[in-house]
């Protein structure tokens, strides 16, 4: 009985199956946005090769902007996905943590002088120090969540409140400026390569996480802890450690994003840098169809979600939306997306599809 039923899955059944796929929402959103831009102005998809001030070849165009500015978000989405899966909550302190790690990078590079002629330390050292600092803050968040059993959103509220102040304190509230051109490579272009560097950094992060997920049990452990902590413990897992680990990995992602952020400007503005980025990162995870209550996750969907959000932002900018008004439009789009992906709404449509199917079936029988 069942096998014949399976064979008879018609178009509506296939559609229903497609709609239930996790990747459906981010991809559909991407498609809709692309379609919208195609209708409004096909010039959106134009990519041209030009030369920047330094005389280097650079690609320009809205698509390149999306790849460029979506990178930080994609990097953060990787860590945020793991944190969400393991702890069933979100880290709202990533923006503040980016401010801290950016501040640390500048502090190490500048030393005592806030406007140094030459760098006081190699960039790699500054970056590594920022990594360590960001991971320590990640571990702090993780420890609050794992050992003190504080809900992630609340635990990270602490760093969210204090982070930007700490960032300012690290540099004595001064605004260091780096004049060394090679520092700007990370947020701009490496001479001779026309593709923005942040994209490569994001790509490296993606490759690393893909390898990690393939070569280790990170996925299984994280999901098991996120779904049922108590049974994970009885199967020999250490749930606390896994949770802390996920926050530490997010810390690493934050450090990379921080490097890109300060490199873009060669300086930092403590109260504005990476503002609201935590919200975008969480949205990326949600848009990727990952349950925000933890458990199963799909990394690719999150990363696509991140680029979809940047796509949306860029589209809105192109439509001359004021940057302060941007959130209003974003909110509407987000609500439409989450409403469409809500289980109740999905079930409603699935029920509709089933009705259609049963009608066609009865016709066949009749």
């Amino acid at each position, binding site marked *: 009985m069942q096998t014949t039923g399976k064979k008879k899955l018609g178009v509506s059944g296939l559609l229903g199956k497609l709609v239930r796929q996790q990747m459906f929402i981010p991809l559909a959103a991407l498609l809709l946005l692309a379609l919208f831009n195609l209708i409004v102005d096909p010039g959106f998809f134009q990519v041209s090769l030009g030369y920047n001030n330094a005389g280097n070849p650079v690609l320009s165009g809205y698509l390149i902007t999306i790849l460029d500015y979506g990178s930080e978000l994609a990097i953060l989405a990787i860590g945020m996905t793991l944190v969400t899966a393991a702890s069933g909550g979100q880290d709202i302190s990533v923006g503040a943590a980016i401010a801290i790690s950016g501040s640390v990078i500048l502090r190490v590079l500048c030393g005592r002088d806030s406007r140094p002629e030459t760098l006081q330390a190699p960039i790699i050292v500054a970056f590594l120090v920022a990594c360590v600092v960001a991971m320590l803050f990640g571990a702090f968040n993780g420890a609050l969540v794992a050992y003190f059993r504080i809900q992630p959103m*609340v635990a990270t509220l602490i760093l969210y*409140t*204090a982070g930007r102040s*700490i960032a300012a304190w690290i540099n004595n509230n001064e605004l260091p400026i780096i004049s060394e051109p090679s520092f700007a490579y990370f947020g701009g272009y490496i001479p001779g390569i026309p593709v923005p560097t942040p994209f490569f950094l994001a790509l490296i992060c993606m490759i690393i996480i893909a390898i990690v997920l393939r070569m280790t049990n990170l996925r299984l452990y994280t999901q098991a802890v996120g779904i049922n902590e108590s049974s994970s413990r009885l199967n020999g897992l250490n749930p606390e450690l896994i949770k802390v680990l996920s926050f530490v990995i997010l810390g690493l992602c934050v450090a990379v994003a921080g490097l890109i952020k300060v490199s873009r400007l060669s300086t930092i503005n403590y109260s504005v840098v990476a503002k609201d980025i935590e919200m975008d990162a969480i949205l990326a995870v949600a848009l990727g169809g990952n349950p925000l209550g933890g458990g199963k996750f799909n990394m690719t969907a999150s990363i696509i979600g991140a680029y979809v959000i940047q796509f949306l932002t860029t589209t809105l900018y192109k439509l001359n939306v004021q940057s302060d008004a941007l959130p*209003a439009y974003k909110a*509407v789009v*987000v609500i439409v997306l989450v409403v469409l992906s809500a289980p109740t709404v999905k079930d409603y449509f699935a029920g509709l599809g089933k009705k259609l199917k049963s009608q066609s079936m009865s016709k066949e029988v009749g």
Partner: protein
Amino acid sequence: MSSTNKTSAEKMSFAERLKGMSDTNLLLTITIVIFFLMYIGAIVFLGGGFLKPQAFFNILNANAALIILSCGLSLVMITGGIDISVGGTTALISMCCAVYLDFHGGNVPVAILIALLIGLAFGLVQGFLVAYLDIQPFIVTLAGMFFARGMTTIVNTNPFNVENEAFVALKDTRITVPGLGSVNKLGKYVPAYVGVGVIVALLVVIVMFCVLRWTKLGRQFYAVGGNKQSALMLGINVKRTKFLAHLICGLLTGIGGFVYFLYVGSGSPSHASGAEMNAIASSIIGGTMLTGGVGNIVGTFFGVLSLSTIQNIVSSAGLDEAWWTGITIAAMLCLFLVIQSLVMSFKKKA
């Protein structure tokens, strides 16, 4: 049998007593005790400034809006949800009221109506999405916050002060507190006063406390927050309860938004920035648990007072650099969360 029970009850150990206490009352007690310790500490170490009644009433004046917003947030948190749109909505309300009063020559009662309607509209939509479409409250209200902030800029980009006479008169109304006051430098007795907003805030606290404590609906909020599935089985309309929580929170945001507007007397897109976080922090310090089912409006009231007392202590202690405020609030929040967590786990073991 009964007599032995009685003697053992009399000899209850600390741990047993702790265990017998409901989670809500336990956290409330901790909050109030810590607030008084902190305030006494401030008086002892930072001098007489904190001893003047007006110092206390100034805390109330400055935080009337936050108290109201926190009440709404506590309610939503008790049902196991969250609302991070309250700050954005407050800014939107201030801006809309300001534009209406100054650019369109409006009057105050209609402005209040506008404030309430905006708040209710947010509560209505968010409540519907959260309760009936079962979308995560964090995402819904995050979008709400984005929307409100964005709309504020769309309504008017530049900050400006409201000059409507009736409004300014209401804003400057001072209500003296009978029997309390202090002698100023010139030797003149100055009675302590509070603004209109404080009266509204206190009324809200009282009403909300009564609703949560002495009405069936109030207890349903706790039941839903305690265990959604069980609440359903107990015959509670979980969806409607959640919806109502958001709706009431929206209404309170409307009231709180206007009280905020009354205090600042201007419209600006950057108004009430971070108010949602302060409100969440206040609720948590006040003993509301984000997991739901545990919390008390009186605790929330003390939560707001604790938070602002700490801020005052920091600035009086001469740590004027801007970052200290952020860091101390965070440290305070951290302390409270850790205390709560330790007490709860101790209770579980006891």
